[in-house]
């Protein structure tokens, strides 16, 4: 017992010694949080140039190329939203097709029954999808992890089954957009005269510009969010929800708004997709394969958790779709196998590998802490 008390006393003396500050020259440390790499201006300029090129592209590109690009644009946009949810907010949704379908059906309803201009209908479709996302979130946020994923799938199924009840929109077999709607999009007449093309081609060009606007807006919006404080909160939530809460992040609010935001974007994309297809059915508009499986594949293969990843992914996917989809079931088996292999051996995807190997960043969103010693 004697030894015990002596040890306790020594411990106290030792702590006293440690409490006296050592003498050091007076300096202050400055901490600054910095986003972005040095070549930000150059990249921004290149980005603007690229978008400019894409805008004038219809002047020299073939109709097939334009249609392919429409596909690439809307798949890329869907992928960016899914990536924002899963790669940043930790919300792995297997039910985003719900918002594709909801947006698409609202577009059909508004243009057919309310004679609305399709572009306005696209915007309202987004708003409608966002509105539906509110009660959806309250329900599915009760679940976590993989159960959350299946929950979103169930909700998508519910939307699909409900919309299949609307006989006015074709019920289970679906319906088409009449030419009066598809040809009434703003700008088609102007394109016909300026580009000297017939109506179907003009339709494609206008749809192309809408798609370009949507995908550019999406990439810009996602980039802006990730650079903001909300983006930092998202990264914190993704890494550890408990830790994020402990530093004051409101997990529920942050996740909720990201979910609604993604729904709005996805709804607009869905409206655009089906404006172009001009024919809708519940099974198609709410297809898990087209609007979730392929999207997940794009994000995973390109690189989850990065803005650049889905861009790479959609290009790879487009190439595979073009050259391999004729193989039907074998193509899908290949996609599934590739997803598995990537998840196991290269979970950061193509861009993740490239980025780590060569330190490349096109959309800088990570923050670095700069510590400078300044003498007082």
């Amino acid at each position, binding site marked *: *017992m004697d*030894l*015990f008390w*002596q*040890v306790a006393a*020594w*411990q106290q003396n*030792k702590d006293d010694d440690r409490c006296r500050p050592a003498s050091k020259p007076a300096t202050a440390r400055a901490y600054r949080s910095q986003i972005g790499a040095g070549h930000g201006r150059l990249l921004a300029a290149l980005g603007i140039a690229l978008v400019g090129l894409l805008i004038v592209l219809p002047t020299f590109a073939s109709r097939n190329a334009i249609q392919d690009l429409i596909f690439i644009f809307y798949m890329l946009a869907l992928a960016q939203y899914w990536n924002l949810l899963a790669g940043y907010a930790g919300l792995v949704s297997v039910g985003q097709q719900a918002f594709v379908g909801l947006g698409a059906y609202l577009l059909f309803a508004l243009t057919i029954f309310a004679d609305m201009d399709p572009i306005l209908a696209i915007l309202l479709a987004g708003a409608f999808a966002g509105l539906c996302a509110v009660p959806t979130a309250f329900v599915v946020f009760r679940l976590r992890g993989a159960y959350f994923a299946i929950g979103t799938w169930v909700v998508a199924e519910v939307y699909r089954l409900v919309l299949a009840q609307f006989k006015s929109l074709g019920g289970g077999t679906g319906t088409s957009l009449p030419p009066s709607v598809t040809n009434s999009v703003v700008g088609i007449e102007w394109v016909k005269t300026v580009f000297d093309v017939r109506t179907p081609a003009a339709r494609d060009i206008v749809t192309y510009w809408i798609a370009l606007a949507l995908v550019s807006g999406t990439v810009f919006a996602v980039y802006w969010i990730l650079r903001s404080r909300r983006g930092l909160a998202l990264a914190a939530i993704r890494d550890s929800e408990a830790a994020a809460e402990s530093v004051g992040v409101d997990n529920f609010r942050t996740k909720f708004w990201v979910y609604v935001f993604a729904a709005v974007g996805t709804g607009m994309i869905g409206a655009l997709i089906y404006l172009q297809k001009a024919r809708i059915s519940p099974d198609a508009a709410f297809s898990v394969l087209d609007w979730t499986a392929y999207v997940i594949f794009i994000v995973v293969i390109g690189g989850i958790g990065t803005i650049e990843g889905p861009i790479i992914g959609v290009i790879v996917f487009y190439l595979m779709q073009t050259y391999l989809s004729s193989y039907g079931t074998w193509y899908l088996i290949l996609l599934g196998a590739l997803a598995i292999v990537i998840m196991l051996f290269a979970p950061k995807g193509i861009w993740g590998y490239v980025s780590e190997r060569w330190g490349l960043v096109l959309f800088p969103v990570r923050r670095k802490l700069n510590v400078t010693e300044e003498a007082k």
Partner: protein
Amino acid sequence: MRLLETRALKSFYGDFQALYGIDTFLDQSETVAIIGANGAGKSTYLKSIAGLIRNEPDSVVFDGSPIGAMSAASVMKLGIALVPEGRRLFPSLSVEENLLIGRYGRQASGPWSLEEIYRLFPILRERRNAASTTLSGGQQQMAAIGRALISNPRVLLCDEISLGLAPIVIRDIYAALPRIKEAGTSLIIVEQDIVQALQVADRVYCFQEGRLSLSGRPDELSRDQIHNAYFGS
């Protein structure tokens, strides 16, 4: 030949180095105590021996064989049993089931059967069918020790068995150790309670910030030596 040796054991948690080359040994039927302040690396040392942290094969040698890189399940089968820090009984299992699970990996013959463990810790027999979560801290510690003993290990590793317990309970638990020693088990005890550790050990090692700062027999070491080794000078 030593029963158990660590040779230049360097352990890492990811990039963080916790041990900087620890050389220790344990002979048959010995009881060795490891003392040191919080964060000195004592638990890391035990986890490395138990296989929860993997190291170079030669850094831990048991009965002449290198086991440093083996998994926890494999190490356990060789006869090294761990009483983990914080007890960590299985909440879904009853008291008796917790004891029995201890010999899932190794059914060796020896002095420790379920009956013998109930004789060592009679309170456990009374609560044998209770959920393990309903036991008090001291009772849980007894169950954790029993769980490790039931596999008749050759080496018993005890990680901070006095942690969070009242002094009178600690006394009861330490009262059981001599019987465990008598039955032939060699012990490595990690302890913050220096008094208890020095009373029960044949030899003592002191850790300080991942390094060995002292080793010797309790009666050979002076208070100053222990103080300096514990806190650093």
